[in-house]
């Protein structure tokens, strides 16, 4: 089976402010995204990581040593946050 990953993001709109919570989040996320070492530490220090079996550490699995995988996880996290913070307006 092929693993399909769907990425969605809001189009550029006036929402792309330079000040405010979203802007701060984006700045923090950008800093974190560029620091893959910090991201890796964050993951391997989590109690869950120690409990994970070898079956999830394959080519498409949990790969804290893979910078691409780490950055993708970071992107997903900021997308998740943005959707949580803007969902009020779309309700």
């Amino acid at each position: 089976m092929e693993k399909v990953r769907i990425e969605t993001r809001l189009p550029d709109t006036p929402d792309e402010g330079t000040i405010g919570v979203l802007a701060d989040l984006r700045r923090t996320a950008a800093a974190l995204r560029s620091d893959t070492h910090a991201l890796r530490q964050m993951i391997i220090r989590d109690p869950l990581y120690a409990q994970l079996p070898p079956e999830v550490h394959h080519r498409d699995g949990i790969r804290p040593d893979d910078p691409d995988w780490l950055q993708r996880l970071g992107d997903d996290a900021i997308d998740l946050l943005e959707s949580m913070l803007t969902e009020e307006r779309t309700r």
Partner: protein
Amino acid sequence: MRIDRLDLIAFGPFSEMTLDLSAPGIHLVAGPNEAGKSTALRAIDQLLYGIDERSRYDFVHAKAALRLSALVRGSEGALVEFIRVKARKTPLRRTDGQPLDQSVLNTILGGIDRATFTSVFALGSAELRQGGEALARGGGDFKQALAAARSGGRLSDALRKIDERLGVLYKRRGQNPRINTLLSELKQARSQLRVATLRPQEYLEGEQGVKDAGNAVTTLTLGLEQARSEQSRVERLVRALPGLNRRGVLMTDLAVLEAEGAIAPVEVVERLPELREDLRLADSKLGDTRRRLDAVGHELSKLAVDDDLLAVEDAIDALYQERKAAAAAADRLASFSGAVTDLRDRAFSLLAQVHMNATLDDTDLYTVPASLRTRTQELHDQRTAIDVDLARDRKAVAQRRRNLEEAEKRLSELAALEDTKPLHAALNAVPQDLLTHMAAADEDARRLDDLVKRATLELRIPASQVGVMAVPTRAQVDEHMETRNDLKRDGHELVKQRKALTARLDDKRLNLNTLLNGDPPPTEAELAAARSVRYELWLAIRDGQQDQAGDFELALDRADQIADRMRRDASRIAERYRLELEIAHDEKALAALNEERAVQDDRADRWDAEWDSLWEGYPGPVPKPGAAPSTLDSVEKLRGGLKDLGDARARLSSLREHATLHIARLHELLRAPGEVASLGAEHALSELPELCEFAGQRLTEQDELARTRNTYESRLLAARDELIAAEAEVAEHERTLTSWETAWYELLIQAKLPTDRDTIGALTDLERLGQVVSFVADAAKSERDSEEAAATLDRFHTRLATTASACGRAMPGDEAERHQLVGDLYKKVKENRSAADRRATLVADQVKLRTETRDLEDAVKGLRAELAGLCEKTKVDSLETLSEAVRRSETYRDLKASLAEVTAALPPDADTLLAEFSETDEHQLTARLRTLTDHVDDLDAQRTRQVQQLGEKKTEFARFDGSAAATQAAASAETTAAALLEESEEYLRLQIARNIVLSCMEEYRQTQQDPVLARASLLFGQLTLGGYGGLELDQDRDSPVVLTRRGAELLSADQLSEGTRDQLYLALRLASLERYAEQDRALPFIVDDIFMTFDDQRTVAALGVLNDMADRFQTIVFTHHDHLVELAQTELPPDRVHVHRLPRFTPA
């Protein structure tokens, strides 16, 4: 940025509504429920950042018609006016319709995105409440409080949701979260996989058992197959026996047929019928063609054609075509001679009517030029017009003379005019507003009189004592009221304390009764009895009576129970003693409260006496304390009313005197005073208007008379002028008539007409002379036509004579016979032409039929030769024997087909089977088949049983075979691992998101903690009217916690009341908001009914805080409480409060 004007052109319930928000201070937008406050609030967000794609504000206007507009002012003072529409293309436009780039607006917005605007610059009651609750829930965690205040609670909400989702996914030592469950499932699947292993010896035994059972099944299967094969062969032979017998009979019949004679080959059998039919058809066609050839020859021999006549057929056709023209020419020639004479006679007769002695040769007498005819008609028309004009103008002169006489008569009958100037002056001297003032003064006097009467009735005081009554001052009343309120408050507090104390005392008495009613403690007798029994038992055991040991143990147990009971009783006694002490204490306190209550009652009595003495000078009943302010208000109102009543009466008297003077002057000037009687000064208000109206009527009548006289004089002058003008017109027409008569005489001379002719007579003469010219011309034309007809007739006669000679016919003398001859020749030509056409057709048919006859003769010959060939091929010598051979051939083929069919139905090995079996009798074979069938059934049953045994062996063996279970366990492990991976990624993603949020919060706290805390502390003090001294941080915790100071006490957020918590959140929110202003990025701050939990005093305090901020932030407050509007208008400076009312929306 500020919004100076907001136009709700088409949005939600609004149509063309404008809010002017340009004034400084607070803007209150007030309206009832459903007025659209929330919509107006959302309109600002949509205006600045775009109308939502799926807008829900289209319930009045269509989506495409949604439209907002505004005039906004940037922080630098730049003004931008724009329109926002619901469109993908150019949603932002200037007022002239040109597109406006969003970047222009973004610059004014200072980089603040929509989410920040809606969460930071807008605050509603629900959000305020949630903010306060979140503060309490978080125990005042300052990092979260700051983040909530800055993001409108969204960061905190997001963090809470993330934590919830994390909790659902995984807990370190949990069992139920999804990842924990999956880890357990994976472990179990692995364990199952390990268990699914094989034991070798059991496996080999099981495998041998299966193999043996399989061999037995194979042996039985082979025996069964052999038996079934034998059974099948016998069955096939039994089924084939009838076919084999039939095959023998058919072969015998064939041998007999071959012995009878020749058998025609198949191709002969198939060809012979066709050949016979072809021969028959060819013979028939040949006979028919020969008959048709004979008929054509016979018709040709009888056909006759005149070729001489056909040689001149064109000339005859031409004569036939010309014969009608020749007859017409002959007719015209006969008629022309009489017509010419008639035309000349008629022309002469007409000429004689005009010129008696003239002849047709005098062409100059009857040939009149067209110009003279036209001129005659013109003069006739002129004369007619002159006569009409002259008659009309003469009639007009007579009419205008009568009009003049009538006007002179009316003017003389009008009355003489009077001098109206004195009456005008007297009327103008009456002031226009005199009556209005009199009426107003009269109304004021009546109204005030009623007011005074109602006030005295309400206060229940005699009217005579109103002037001398005395009441206490407001200060005295307020002082007494304050004392009374203190008394009431103390009384309420006393009652409350007494009630609480009584309840507590009742509870304690109940507990004491419960203790007293419990089981009594053990008595000395019981203790002594127990000791005695135990001692006796011990002595018995010591003496060796071991059977008493059980009883002794029971006695010991009973001793323990008594000891426990005594310990419990000791506790109960201690509890009872404590309760008795507390009850005594509470009873003393209750007695003290009762004494205090008596003192309170004495103070209340003294207060009542002082209250009555305050109202001694008041003639009415002493008011209740609560009604005293309104009584004082009524007394003040009564006194004011009395003063106003005196003023109104004096003003009315003065106005009446003025009116009386004007009435006297008007009476003097009016010539018919008897029509309006004088009624005196009291009735001036009604008399003066009547007199003024009468004088006005008199002046109107005189004005009307003057206007009538002027009108009549004007009409008289006009009538005179019109008469003179009409007489001048008549004279002019008479001069025109004289000139016309001269021109008429000259025309008659030129036309050589008699000079006594009038215009009608002259026009008649000219008509007759015109007819003379026409008749003379017609006679000349008839003469020319007669000559042409004679020439045509000559040409026809010459051509006829030539043609008749060529045909051998004589030329007739009579014209009718000549035409008869042309007809005959034409008919003959037509007949000969048809005969010649028929002859040509017959000749062609004759040639064609001869060719066909030859072809058919050849075909018949060929068919006969083929028939002879068929006889030779069949080896017969005649057509009859050929037919016999063909008949035999058909029987032969039928037998062959049956034989083939029977042979095909037989089994392929039928002959072999027949040779193998010794017996060929059907009965013997059937008996043998039955025996074989029984044997097969027996073997089949044995095999079924053996197969069943094999299945059992396999099932037994499968239990040793772990491969399926292992596969299942492996698949389960794989599925669980995939789910685990999915959930783990989600968990790690949420953890990263959580860390981002916490990092943001911490970063903001570190940079903004001190300034925001300082400002929020100040604001919180203002919002709580100084009830709280401010805010402090407890830095000793893991995360700093905000504490509120009340006096010397420090309270955390969860210890505050609901309203105070809301005010704490508001203070933090406003302090965070000011950080934006400091960066020059202030957008309008919009609040929606946030004062729900505020009392009036704190509401006023909050309005004051907002007003102070309004110069840095445009502040817009939405509310549906009129009370809030009244508070704002009362408590804030008038120029700092601007109220905008929204009407209630009523759906169509």
